[in-house]
């Protein structure tokens, strides 16, 4: 029986810049049940433009690990329905995006929520649960 060598190979990592946004359906789910499946599905995802996805070899609905020195999360990929200029991916503001936000504030009290630099790679791991994002 042949050995599945693929499982020992690490998926290629790509650098990615992420900004956060608000989504009414996710806010609605938050109001109803922040520990529910709807909120998780609408939060634990990253929206990427078609061209950027092609460059990184990532497809719609792939599962990815996004990590930097502040934290890491496993989320689903959604292909953007719009024409994106590229270079920036989007995550809805949530505990999943907050897991990647830097603690560098320059003493000014406002974290850099809108510009997250991280590495992204394909993964088969489970989506990060909200419970594991607690302190």
């Amino acid at each position, binding site marked *: 029986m042949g050995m599945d060598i693929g499982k020992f190979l690490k998926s290629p990592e790509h650098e990615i*810049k992420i*900004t956060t*946004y*608000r*989504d*009414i*359906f996710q*806010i*609605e*789910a938050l*109001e*109803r*049940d*922040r*520990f*529910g499946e709807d909120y998780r599905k609408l939060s634990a995802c990253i929206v990427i433009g078609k061209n950027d996805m092609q460059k990184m070899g990532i497809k719609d609905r792939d599962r990815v690990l996004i990590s930097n020195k*502040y*934290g890491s999360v496993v989320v689903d990929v959604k292909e953007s329905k*719009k024409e994106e*200029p590229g270079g*920036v991916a*989007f995550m809805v*503001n*949530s*505990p999943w995006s*907050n*897991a990647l*936000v*830097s*603690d560098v*504030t*320059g*003493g*000014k*009290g*406002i*974290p*850099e*929520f*809108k*510009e997250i630099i991280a590495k992204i790679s394909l993964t088969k791991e489970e989506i990060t649960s*909200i419970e594991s*994002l*607690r*302190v």
Partner: protein
Amino acid sequence: MITCTGCALLCEDIEVIIENNSVKETRNACRRGAARIKGCVNRMVPSIDQKPVDIDISLKKAIQILKNAKAPMLFGFGNSTNEAQKKAIQLAKKINAALDDTSSFCQGHLIEKVLHNKFRTCSLDEIRNKADVLVYWGSDAQDSQPRHLSRFSYFPRGELRQRGYEEDRLAIAIDVRESNTAKICKGHFYRIPLKGDREFILALMDALSGKVPTYDPKKMLELAAILKKAEFGVIFAGIGLTYSIKDDIDILVALSDKLPNFHIMPMVGHYNMRGFNENLFNETGFVNRVKFSEGKTIHDDKYSIVEALKENTVDALLVVGSDPVSSLPRSIISHLASIPVICIDPCVTMTSKIAIVNIPCAVSGIESSGTAIRMDGKVVELKKAMASNYPDDENVLKRLLEVI
């Protein structure tokens, strides 16, 4: 008819149908508002160390924690009534606590400029009646304040704008992302690079001064021409803009000086964030980030929730109507695991799950009454629509204040 507390628009035209003390149906509310009014599925129960107790016992434990703390902090209040916020300020004074709210890492800087009259602002009703040029800048109102365009800005008929969006109003979006609001501003969406707002403002100021801007001159001159023609213009400053220029907020004041017919309105999310800023400002002259010490008020960035948690300078935290474990970076909140947290909220939150003491309260504007301040500064009455088994947060804070 009740007032919606889904966001800082505080829509006063909401009808609710209540059956068996629960909301069966809402009318006129947006998705966000309807979800807020219908309530969460996981209501909080009083607890100590995550074990259910009688509410009076949880209150006693909270009092003990706050009494023993040498450096307590009170935080939250964006979802509290003015009356609860005023009680929180009294409590912070009484126990020499630091006091901060969510505006500290949101729109606080801009609201401070408004309260200091650093730029022109106006009411939402003036916008409905007079505004002809609307600039949504780093603001996706369609998702965050969903009835903003339909009730006040783009779509409605107004005293001087009888032909509404069809002829009388022009909407512009300036954003990093083609948001749902930007989609409505067809032909007038200016996409900017991430954190490119400052450069965009400088170029726009050049164009307004008759200079040829170095950044995208054709588009900048076109935009400047539109803005100059405005009879009553408004820049809706969203969190995208505020975060991008957070180190140089005064640049927005400088832009405002170049646009004499324009008004600036910070787009506030939580229903009474502006109320907290105004209530604290009236009491101390500051909008957030204060510490009370023997009758004196000290204002410093180190009393912001972010810096206080980062630098481990608080030894107990009382959180009211907010979920910092969810809304702050995980890299900052680890200190919360090492201090006693008291949580007052109608619902189970990520913060309540790590709190030593949980004290449930009624949902303001639905289960309890009071007043709040709309994003434009108007005081709005909140009416109670149904009964609750729990006291409102004003009463919880009042009890803490009386006993301490």
